[in-house]
C-alpha cells in the first residue's frame, strides 16, 4: 500500500498534466471556456432557487432556510462524487489506448477522473459562497476552516471507490450501467435533499412507513452521510463538524482506498488485454 501511494506521488506531474488536460479539453471550443465551471453551478443554483421558492415550498423548518442553499450545499459535492465514480469507472476503458500502447501507470486514470471533477467542485464552491453571503445575513463562520478536512475525506473515499470501479468495469462492463442507478438510489439515501432530523422525524412518527425507518436505521453506515454532515455543519450551520464521526469516516475511507488499490494492483496485468 505504501508502495501504491508513493507510486501515485511519483506520477504527480503526470497526474497534474492529465487533470489540466481534462479541464482544458472539456471547455475547448466553447465560447464561455472556463467560465462554465462557474456558470454551471450558478445556473443550477438559479433553477433550484426558482423551483424551491415558487413551485415547491417544502416544510423543512427554519433549519434549512433558504432551502435552495441547503440543497446546494450538498448537491455540489454530490455532483463531484457521482461524476467521479462514473468517470473513474469508465476511465480504463476510455483510456484503453494508453494502457495498451504505452507503458502507462493505469491507476493514474481513475485518479485523474476523481481529481478533475474535484477541481470543478472547487471552482463552483466560491460561487456558492458568494450566494451564501448574499442570501444569509449572518455571514460565514470560522468553522468553514473545517471544510478542507471534509473535502479530503470525500477525496479519499472517491479515490478508493474509483479504483475499485475502474478495475472491475474492465472485466464486468455491466457495472457502468448498474452504477448510474446505484448512484441515484444512493443520492436519495443520503441527507442531501432532506436533513437527518427530518428523516428521523418521519421515521419516528406514528404509523410511519417502514422505508424511512430502515433508511434512518442504516443512515450511519453510509459514509456519504457523515461527509454531507461535514459540509452542512461547516458551511450551512457554521458549527463545529462532528469530531467523532468524520474522523471515523476518514479512517474507513482510507481502508477503502487501500482495498481499492490492492484490488486494482491485483488485476492490473489483465487490463491491456481486456480494455
Amino acid at each position, binding site marked *: 500500500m505504501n508502495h501504491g501511494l508513493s507510486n501515485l506521488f511519483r506520477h504527480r506531474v*503526470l497526474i497534474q*498534466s492529465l487533470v489540466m*488536460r481534462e479541464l482544458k*479539453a472539456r471547455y475547448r471550443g466553447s465560447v464561455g471556456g472556463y467560465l462554465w465551471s462557474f456558470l454551471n453551478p450558478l445556473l443550477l443554483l438559479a433553477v433550484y432557487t426558482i423551483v424551491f421558492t415558487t413551485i415547491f415550498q417544502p416544510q423543512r423548518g427554519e433549519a434549512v432556510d433558504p432551502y435552495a442553499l441547503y440543497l446546494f450545499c450538498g448537491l455540489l459535492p454530490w455532483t463531484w462524487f457521482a461524476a467521479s465514480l462514473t468517470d473513474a469507472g469508465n476511465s480504463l476503458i476510455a483510456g484503453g*489506448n*494508453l494502457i495498451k500502447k504505452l*507503458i*502507462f501507470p493505469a491507476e493514474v486514470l481513475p485518479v485523474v477522473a476523481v481529481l478533475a471533477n474535484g477541481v470543478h467542485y472547487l471552482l463552483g464552491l466560491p460561487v456558492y459562497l458568494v450566494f451564501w453571503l448574499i442570501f444569509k445575513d449572518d455571514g460565514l463562520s470560522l468553522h468553514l476552516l473545517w471544510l478542507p478536512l471534509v473535502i479530503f475525506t470525500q477525496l479519499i473515499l472517491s479515490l478508493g471507490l474509483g479504483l475499485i470501479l475502474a478495475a472491475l468495469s474492465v472485466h464486468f462492463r455491466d457495472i457502468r450501467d448498474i452504477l448510474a442507478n446505484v448512484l441515484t438510489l444512493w443520492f436519495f439515501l443520503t441527507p442531501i435533499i432532506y436533513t437527518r432530523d427530518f428523516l428521523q422525524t418521519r421515521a419516528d412518527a406514528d404509523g410511519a412507513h417502514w422505508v424511512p425507518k430502515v433508511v434512518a436505521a442504516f443512515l450511519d453506515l453510509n459514509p456519504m452521510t457523515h461527509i454531507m454532515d461535514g459540509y452542512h455543519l461547516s458551511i450551512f450551520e457554521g458549527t463545529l463538524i462532528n469530531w467523532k464521526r468524520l474522523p471515523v469516516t476518514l479512517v474507513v475511507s482510507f481502508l477503502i482506498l487501500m482495498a481499492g488499490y490492492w484490488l486494482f494492483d491485483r*488485476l492490473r496485468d489483465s487490463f*491491456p488485454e481486456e480494455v
Partner: protein
Amino acid sequence: MASERAPYHAGDHAAVRVQSVRKQYRKAAHAHRFLTFKSALLGGDLFKVLAPADVFTALDEVSLEIARGETLGVIGSNGAGKSTLLKIIAGTTKPTAGAVFVDGKVSALIELGAGFHPEISGRENVFINGIMLGLSRQQVTERFDDIVAFAELEDFIDAPVKTYSSGMYMRLGFSIAIHIDPEVLLIDEVLAVGDEAFVHKCLDKLAAFKRRGKTILLVSHSLESVRRLCDRVVWLKNGKVEASGDPPRVIDAYLNWVAHKEEGELAAGSERRTAEVSTGNPGDAPGAPHDAADVANVANVAKGGGDTAATGTDDADPAAGTAGAAPYETGRWGSHQVVIDKVRLLDGAGEQHYVFTCGDPVTLELTLLATEAVNDFAIGIGIFNADGVCCYGTNTDIERFEAGRLEGSATVRVEIPELNLIEGTYYLDLAVHRIDGYPYDYQRGLTRFRTTSPIADTGVARLPHSWSFEGGISWKKTPDAEANAGHDAGHDADHDADHDAG
C-alpha cells in the same frame, strides 16, 4: 515511461534478455470464464485455468538477447508473434510464463501518437505525451523546439491536434518518441509513416541513435529496412524463433519459406479459379471484362481517332490490353471451339512454379484442345500487374504468324529467357481467338504468378543495365561482392537457420 522490471545483472552485456517467454491469449471471449469472486481475488486470477483449446499461443518459449548497442530486426509473417514480443519487452503486456529483463529506459514506438488528445493543441500534447513517456516537464521544455522542428510542425503546433492530417499526427508522435532518448528503442512498423523525405529523416535519426550505442529492436515487414539497419535478425514463425543471425542469411531463408508458401497458395488459387469460371457461349460471356474492354476501345478511338481496324480486333486480343488502367476483373469467355485446357509456368529446369526471381528464365506452356478443326486462329498472351497495367502483351497475329490449321490437342510454349519484371504479383491474360477478335477461349487473370527480387527497384520491368564509373568516384561496397557473399550463404540458409534457432 521508464519500465521497472527485474534488476539488471552486473557483468551482463545484454540490454534486453528474454527468457523462455510464453504468451497465450484467450480465444473465447467472456463465456463461463469467471470463478467465484472470492477465489478470483484470493488467487489473483479472475479466470479459471484455460483449456488448451481455448488459448492461442502467440509466443512459445521464446528466448533471445539483444546486446547493448545492437540493432535487432524481427521478421515473420502476420500472426507470427512479432508485435506480441515487442509489447512484452516494452512491458505493456505481461508474459504468461518466462521472464524479461531490460536494462535502461525503454521507449516504444508501437502506435505513434497514442495518447494524444484531439481537443488540445499540439504544444500541450507534446508536454503531456512527453511526460507520459517518462520525461520531466523540464526535459520536455528543453527538447520542445527540437521535437517540433523534427516533426516540421512549427506553423501548426498551437492548433488542436484534431485538425492535423494523419501524417502530421504520426510525425509528431514519432518525433516525441525519438526525443525521449531511451536506452532501448522498440519500433513496430512505424517507419511506414510519412512521405519519403520524412522516412529518410527517421532512418537518419535511427542511424544516429545506433552510433551513440543505443539498442534498437525493429519489427518490420519491410525487409529492405531490416537489411539496411539491423546487425542481426530474428525470424519468428508461429510464435517460435525459427532462425536468428546474419541479416542476409535469415532474410533469404525467410523469403525462401514465403516463396514456398506462396507457390502453394497460387497453385491452389489458379486451379480453383479456373474450375469456378463457367464456360458458357460467347453471348453469356461475363459482361464486365467486355465492358471494360469496350470502354477502353471507345477511349482509344476518342483519343487517337485512329486505326479502326486495329481497334476492331482489340476486343479479344490480350495484346490490346494496353487498355491498361481499366479495372482488372478476372473471367473466362469464348465459343470453346478451341479451349485452353492447361496452363503451366515452368522454370529453367522445366519444373512448374508460381514464384520466380526477377531475371529467371520462364516458359509459359499452354495446352490447347480443339473440339473442331479451325484455320482462323491466333494465340495471345498478356501480363498484367496488380494495378491492372499491361506490362507486356503480344499475339501470334501481331508477330506475323499466318494461321494454318489447329485440330485435336496442341502445345504452345512461350519462352522468356529473362523474366525482368520487378517484384510483385502478375496476372495472365491468355486467349485463343479468330484473327478478327472473335474469342474461342479467353481467360482473363485466371493464372497468377509472383516475382521476387533481392533489390527494391521500382517501375514495371527491369531494363537490363549495368553501372560503370570513372574518375573521382569510389564505393565502400559494391553489390557484386555482397551478392556473391549472400548467394553463398543463401544455399545453406535453411540448414544454418535451423541450427541457430533456440
